[in-house]
């Protein structure tokens, strides 16, 4: 693999391979920004990978009171799943258990259009035990469910998109754990400025990148040994002697363009930081281009 170089950072001439997913977006509001964020954080907990969590979810942006339907502070959350059915199941259970329960919360559609619809308030309303009230205002329908601190207001149905993309990624490699983390954090920070994407892993970063398959029965994925620095001398490693730490950023986006834009922003941040303070090398994960329809070549994304 021929490497390119930008500001002293080696860029693998490779590509990230990503997959089509179903996705939706909701806007959670609350009396204060702190409680809107709390509901969103709770709802998007344990949502790092569709493999083990059913969905991938994260906070896309914080919304001011001028940008939300009810004039209160809010947070926009994105959810991704492999099927409409699973997306519906995850949305319903996560909003029902984590947003409905959060003080002062309300929940609205975060996508203005889409190919299909998911039930939101239309499913959660039954918690009202018959005391729930519907209110239609123009094209929008809301449910008002009485709860102990007032009412939980929730939009009845929301759009989903079938054009979402999951699995955009950057693999960040450095000479120490601290420098690698610094470069990856800089990339995530830059990516958070891009609309319509989330980085679902903790703080946007995954340290346990995986390969398909395992020597053990029943495990669909296992550690990506080619990128484990402690196995450099024991396996067919993708790492040179100078690499001591590797981190990965996984990106899910509502559109392919959004994923590309986020990867471009992340790559630019890593390159900008340079090898002395950050990463020595950046790569990307793929399956030879056979599994995912979306390919993001790093050479095309360089600043």
């Amino acid at each position, binding site marked *: 693999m021929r490497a390119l170089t930008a500001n002293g950072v080696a860029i693998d001439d490779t590509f990230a391979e990503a997959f089509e997913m179903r996705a939706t977006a909701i806007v959670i509001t609350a009396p204060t920004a702190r409680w809107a964020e709390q509901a969103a954080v709770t709802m998007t907990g344990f949502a790092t990978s569709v493999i083990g969590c059913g969905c991938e979810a994260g906070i896309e942006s914080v919304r001011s009171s001028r940008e939300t339907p009810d004039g*209160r502070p809010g947070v926009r959350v994105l959810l991704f799943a492999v099927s409409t059915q699973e997306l519906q199941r995850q949305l319903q259970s996560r909003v029902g258990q984590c947003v409905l329960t959060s003080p002062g919360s309300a929940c609205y559609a975060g996508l203005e259009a889409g190919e299909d619809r998911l039930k939101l308030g239309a499913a959660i309303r039954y918690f009202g035990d018959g005391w729930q009230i519907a*209110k239609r205002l123009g094209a929008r329908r809301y449910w008002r469910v009485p709860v102990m601190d007032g009412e939980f207001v929730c939009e009845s149905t929301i759009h989903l998109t079938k054009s979402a993309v999951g699995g955009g990624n950057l693999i960040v490699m450095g000479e120490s754990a601290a420098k690698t983390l610094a470069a990856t954090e800089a990339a995530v920070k830059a990516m958070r400025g891009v609309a319509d994407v989330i980085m679902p892993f903790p703080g946007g970063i995954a340290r346990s990148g995986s390969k398909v398959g395992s020597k053990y029965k029943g495990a669909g994925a296992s550690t990506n040994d080619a990128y484990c620095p402690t196995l450099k001398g024991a396996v067919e490693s993708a790492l040179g002697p100078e690499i001591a730490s590797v981190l990965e950023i996984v990106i899910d986006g509502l559109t392919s363009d959004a994923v590309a834009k986020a990867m471009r922003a992340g790559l630019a941040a890593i390159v900008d930081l340079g090898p002395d303070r950050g990463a020595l090398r950046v790569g990307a994960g793929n399956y030879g281009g056979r599994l995912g329809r979306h390919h993001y070549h790093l050479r095309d994304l360089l600043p």
Partner: protein
Amino acid sequence: MRPLTFTLRGAPGQRLDLSPLTPQNLAGKTTAKIAEIELGTTRVRVTTGEVFRIREGDPNAVLFEGGSSRFDRVGMGLSAGMIRVEGEVGVQAGRLMSGGRLRIHGAAGPFAASGMSGGTLEIEGDAGERLGGPLSGETVGMSGGVVHVHSDAGQRAGDRLRRGVILIEGRAGAYAGSRMIAGTLAIGGEAGDLPGYLMGRGTILLGRGATLLSPTFGDCGEHALVAAQLLADYVAPFSAKAARLFRRPLRRLAGDLAALGKGEILLARL
């Protein structure tokens, strides 16, 4: 483009049915053809050309210069476009409207917005009784759209309201929102006796209370309702006054408990 204009020649000799004069009916017709449209409601034949001077223009924007309490069914069945009346109108203005905009620069008679399912009806003067209500034999009243009355409304405004929003900036007569099925009715001034009489669901907002509230509504206390903020934002483009009311602290009365009891009267704090 200037509007297709109907200028009243003089006071009509009989009640007129103006329902044929909607944008969708007038599109593609020549002035001569329009002049032949019959508007009479008695055995005496009356044509559009006899009642109005017609000035060519865009049929999507119809203007009546001059009004009369004998102008019945103005904008009936309007589905798109705009009708403006510079004066008062008679009964059933905007009945069965499904879209578009009807603006009346004067008072409207009984049953305005009856059976309306979409669009916007604006009445700058008073509205007669049973605003948005069903006619005899019909089971539901207005089922969509927005009605904005700048002044007062008669008895039983919003009777059998099924969906949509009625905004009355002035006072309302007795039994406002009677038998409401759902929807929203806001009254800026004082309401008459027994608002929400036998309502099942829906929301009635009272800016200045009512002359008599029914004992069959249960006081649920004063609340800052998120839903009221949504309502405020929704009605703001139509009526800033109504929007301000929804943003006040609201006392919620649940009822009518003599009926289904899932409706509410919201009393704005004075």
